[in-house]
């Protein structure tokens, strides 16, 4: 299905009472504007910090209940957008699914593969629809690239090079800085998107080398060298304090694609690759990029709501794929090497200090 953000809102969605659980940066910048874009008002906004819940309720409009604990208001909603610190994803999502609620769970599904398995199991046993907030599956360029590769139009994929980083990030609470709550830094955040995209586009990972700049806290910069089961090799670079290229370059025997990670941008060599139809789209006809988050979050939200009202599957269901992803992230941290930064060397040279290592 192709979504147009401007098409009329679906009246059936209005019967779904939605809670937003966790009122941090992503709820404020993504989910609540998406609800507004679809002309939907949340029924409940929950945050341990009641003031944040109230502030976002005012922002969301309507008559949303602003509460500190969703568990006291289970009768007030049918579906929940869970945007909590990562360590709460598993307990809260399994609890919601056991109560028959539909859940749109922000990525990562959970911190560990074991927690992800619990969630997958809870989803199987529940009537609720579980979707995972892998927002990049909703960019049309990303979808076209997946379909193009799958139909063989790029030939055999030989290499890839993905750089994702911004000079600054916005964080509303300290959870993202605390390993015990977030499970990790830039790899657990941006990296999960990128690794998900690699698995989605190119298939499973055979082996990797991983480096990051953690000295016991959450890493801000990370690098991965990957070899895929398909034989393709590639590099991933991630940063929370550097502006990186923000694209994925994928090279196959039939050409090369450069895909914008935050928008619809596409470049191809040869340029004629863009004229190929894949998954019902032609690359050149994908609309120009937008840096706004609300339209893309609205697509994700609409997809989940459609699955709820039709009994279908969301585009990114909460299945074993996320267990694989969590295991890959966990393996990266377990096999971490130090990312050598030239300006750290003088600090470490000549000292016997025990350098604490990653999460």
């Amino acid at each position, binding site marked *: 299905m192709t979504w147009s953000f401007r098409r009329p809102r679906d009246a059936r969605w209005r019967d779904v009472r939605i809670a937003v659980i966790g009122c941090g940066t992503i709820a404020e910048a993504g989910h609540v504007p998406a609800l507004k874009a679809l002309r939907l008002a949340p029924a409940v906004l929950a945050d341990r910090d009641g003031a944040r819940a109230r502030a976002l309720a005012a922002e969301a409009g309507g008559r949303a209940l602003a509460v500190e604990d969703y568990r006291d208001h289970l009768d007030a909603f049918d579906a929940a957008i869970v945007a909590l610190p990562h360590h709460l994803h598993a307990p809260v999502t399994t609890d919601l699914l056991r109560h028959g609620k539909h859940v749109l769970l922000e990525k990562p599904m959970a911190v560990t593969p074991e927690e992800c398995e619990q969630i997958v199991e809870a989803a199987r046993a529940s009537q609720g629809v579980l979707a995972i907030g892998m927002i990049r599956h909703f960019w049309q360029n990303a979808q076209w690239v997946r379909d193009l590769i799958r139909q063989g139009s790029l030939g055999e994929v030989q290499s890839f090079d993905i750089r994702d980083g911004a000079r600054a990030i916005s964080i509303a609470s*300290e959870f993202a800085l605390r390993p015990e709550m977030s499970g990790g830094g830039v790899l657990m955040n941006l990296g999960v998107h990128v690794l998900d995209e690699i698995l989605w586009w190119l298939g499973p990972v055979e082996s990797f080398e991983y480096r990051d700049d953690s000295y*016991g806290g959450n890493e801000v910069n990370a690098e991965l060298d990957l070899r895929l089961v398909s034989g393709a090799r590639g590099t991933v670079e991630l940063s929370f304090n550097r502006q990186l290229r923000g694209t994925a370059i994928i090279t196959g025997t039939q050409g090369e694609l450069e895909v914008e990670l935050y928008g619809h941008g596409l470049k191809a060599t040869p340029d004629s690759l863009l004229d190929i139809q894949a998954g019902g789209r032609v690359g050149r006809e994908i609309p120009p990029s937008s840096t706004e988050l609300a339209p893309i979050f609205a697509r994700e939200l609409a997809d989940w709501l459609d699955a709820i009202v039709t009994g279908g599957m969301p585009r990114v269901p909460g299945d074993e794929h996320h267990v694989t992803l969590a295991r890959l992230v966990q393996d990266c941290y377990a096999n971490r090497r130090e990312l050598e930064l030239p300006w750290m060397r003088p*600090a470490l040279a000549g000292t016997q200090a025990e350098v604490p290592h990653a999460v």
Partner: protein
Amino acid sequence: MPSEPTIPNSPLAGRRVLVTGGTGFIGGRVAEKLVLEHGARVRVLARDYGRAVRVARLPIELVSGSALDEVALDRAVDGCDAVVHAAHDFGDEWANVPAARALAEAVMRHGAERLVYVSSVSVHEPVPAEGVLDEESPTPAGFRYAAVKLAIEQEMERARREQGLPSVVVRPTIVYGPYSPPWTLQPIGALRSSRVVLPAMGQGHSWAVYVDDVADAIIAALARPEAVGERFLVSGPDQVTWSDFFGSYERALGLHSLLPMETEDVLRAQSPAGVVVSPSALLRTPLARGGIQVAKRVVGYQRWRGMRDRMQPLQFPATREQTALYATKATVDISKARRLLGYAPQFDLQRGMAITSDYLHWSQFDQPWA
């Protein structure tokens, strides 16, 4: 059996140190060195978690709050053995003064043994045109930032004299290196977007000091008993000019943006806004762009690049104080820091800039998207 962690031979090992401004440039590096080289337990006061990502790579304790918030300061000092005050709020600058007073009171109330205030050479601005600058040189503090820094120094001194505050003041000079807003990031921004005018034909003395040397001086001021009650100028080991300094950035990024000028010409041309747009900048108008494309083809890209560099807007020093800073032939005397802090700067310009250049490339400042 796992080997015992080796505790570094530092008097700060195991000590709890609060770093205000620990999410920033100098404070962030102090925090890194305290943890990694000295085995200290570091607490950082953070008002913006997004800015704290760099220091949160380390096993530090984050305390939420602003360095202008007296309650947050009190909470942050509680339980600390020593404090580095490196925060400076550029919003309501004068509010930094009562906040520093409150911090000093919290230090005394909670019995912390040392408070190191990271001031600035700016208290000496406008700097003398020649001679030797030392801790006893005049402190005209001729603009707001400098006046606020000086007022805080005076607060510290008053509290030391009247109430026995164990304070030390460190006045770093031109601190550059990875993440330096004033002397690395802003200069390269200027060099990338304009022609940077250097007074005194670029031959003024730059007083550049690599951030690690400053961090080491601050840490020595925390640990050395003889530092209490003293002020220290902290500068680099070698005498370099502003041409050397900015030229290092030009070479690192492959730019040709410096424009040395006589100081009197700079003073004559300086506008209140500090930036004079050259008439040739008009060539950047959309109408002219088509012509530029043609010119590129006619003269070739390399020659075109040289022409384009000469057509950039001119960036003059923003103020007369800054012009004096770029024109001075004075030298900074760091003998007091050497004597009482054991300060031994390790990074001459060549070494410091080599590392900074690595950082700039790693940060991709040589790329169009950065």
